């Protein structure tokens, strides 16, 4: 075991903070100690390839980073690193593959989610075209979940601006038969039988771009967030609309109370408070930039009854920034770190749950996803 604690040496001490950044031209890793005042940047990893999904998995004694990479020419794959990106072991074969009989071909992976601690080799991947894949060997091999692959609605799911992607995976923390996913477009789907069958769960979610504004499915849901302390309660950032469900997605209710725009992409729970959620509103679907060119994170601390702008340290003039659906994240430190990346290649972070912000990185390629973790769990 190396004695140094350095991202450049592929070794980080317990309590270190990790930010994984995926961009249109590669991945970057930012590392800091628990104070989160100074950061070391490594990368680009996979230069020239887009990275829309990253994950960090510490189950079963691993210290594994997973990156979903997409080459413009050679397709998409999931690659692991056990030394924080110092080296990557790409699989020979492309492991996320649709069966030939499906008629589908993988475009890219949009989400990688490690499963629960008591099932340490279980992982999920959300992909484009919209489907859920499952791995039983910690990401070495993947199989599609048949209940979604063969869903009767599939012919009517339509791609949003980013493609027909399954981007959100929300497993129920106490019941392994239950899971919720979201796709653009298609909306929210829920299984109660371990993935065998899936029902659309979009009641109350508006589809502004369809003649029928409240269809059973077809909504362009951008992100869903939940906290394990209150698993039946969900928050949803829609393509126009902010919603909350208190009944595990049976019904949704508008909670866009006091935000400058209810259009946006990303949504993140506070790691320790199930009433606190973060969003970054965008002006509109026709102008997907910060409203009034002021970069503001909005936070609710009362489960959507009210939202407050967080601006301290964020640019409030000429900030034509865009934050996409997976570019907002949180670490698990006691004083929660909140981080986000922009399409202009900036990374902002807060060490105090959003009260104060600092620019951590600049001039990266356009940011697609940001994931944070504390090495060794909570410290």
């Amino acid at each position, binding site marked *: 075991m190396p004695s140094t604690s350095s991202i450049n040496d592929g070794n980080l001490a317990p309590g270190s903070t990790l930010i994984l950044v995926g961009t249109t031209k590669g991945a970057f890793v930012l590392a800091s100690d628990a104070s989160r005042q100074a950061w070391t940047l490594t990368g680009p990893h996979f230069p020239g390839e887009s990275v829309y999904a990253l994950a960090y998995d510490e189950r079963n004694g691993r210290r594994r980073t997973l990156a979903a990479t997409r*080459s413009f*020419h050679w397709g998409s794959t999931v690659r692991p690193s056990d030394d924080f990106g110092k080296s990557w072991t790409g699989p020979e074969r492309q492991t996320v593959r649709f069966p030939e009989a499906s008629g589908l071909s993988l475009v890219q992976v949009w989400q990688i989610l490690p499963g629960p601690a008591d099932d340490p080799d279980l992982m999920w991947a959300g992909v484009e075209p919209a489907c859920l894949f499952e791995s039983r060997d910690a990401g070495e091999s993947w199989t599609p979940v048949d209940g979604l692959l063969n869903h009767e609605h599939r012919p009517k799911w339509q791609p949003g601006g980013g493609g027909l992607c399954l981007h959100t995976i929300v497993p129920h923390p106490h019941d392994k038969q239950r899971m919720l996913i979201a796709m653009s477009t298609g909306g929210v789907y829920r299984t109660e039988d371990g993935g065998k069958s899936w029902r659309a769960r979009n009641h109350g979610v508006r589809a502004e771009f369809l003649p029928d504004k409240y269809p059973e499915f077809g909504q362009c849901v951008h992100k869903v967030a939940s906290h394990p302390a209150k698993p039946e309660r969900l928050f949803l950032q829609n393509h126009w609309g902010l919603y909350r469900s208190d009944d595990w997605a049976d019904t949704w209710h508008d909670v866009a109370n006091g935000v400058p725009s209810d259009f946006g992409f990303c949504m993140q729970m506070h790691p320790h408070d199930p009433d606190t959620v973060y969003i970054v509103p965008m002006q509109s679907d026709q102008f997907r930039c910060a409203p009034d060119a002021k970069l503001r994170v909005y936070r609710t601390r009362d489960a959507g009854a009210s939202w407050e702008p967080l601006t301290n340290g964020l640019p409030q003039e000429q900030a034509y920034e865009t934050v996409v659906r997976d570019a907002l994240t949180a670490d698990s430190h006691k004083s929660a770190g909140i981080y986000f990346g922009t399409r202009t290649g900036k990374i902002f972070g807060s060490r105090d749950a959003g009260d104060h912000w600092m620019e951590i990185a600049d001039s990266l390629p356009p940011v697609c996803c940001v994931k944070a973790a504390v090495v060794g769990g909570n410290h």
Partner: protein
Amino acid sequence: MAISIVLPRALHQYARGTNVVSLDEPCPTVADALASLAARLPAVTDRVLTEQGELRPHVNVFVGTESVRFLDGLETELADGSTLTIVPAVSGG
């Protein structure tokens, strides 16, 4: 019948470091040649063809100096001694 397949540098790592693969078995078409290649080096064809056996959108295969996109696609017929060249399109990174 000998067919040669010239691989781009990006795929050498999936071809045990080689840059030209010679096929001695009968390969009447480009699809047949790529199927023979898949039997030897499946990691290479993973990156050239989709799960549906279609040429990836930004990968080009030439027979001699002509792209199969302007011939009969993967059904383009091969003559003895043909050379296939796999190259990434000008798009990218």
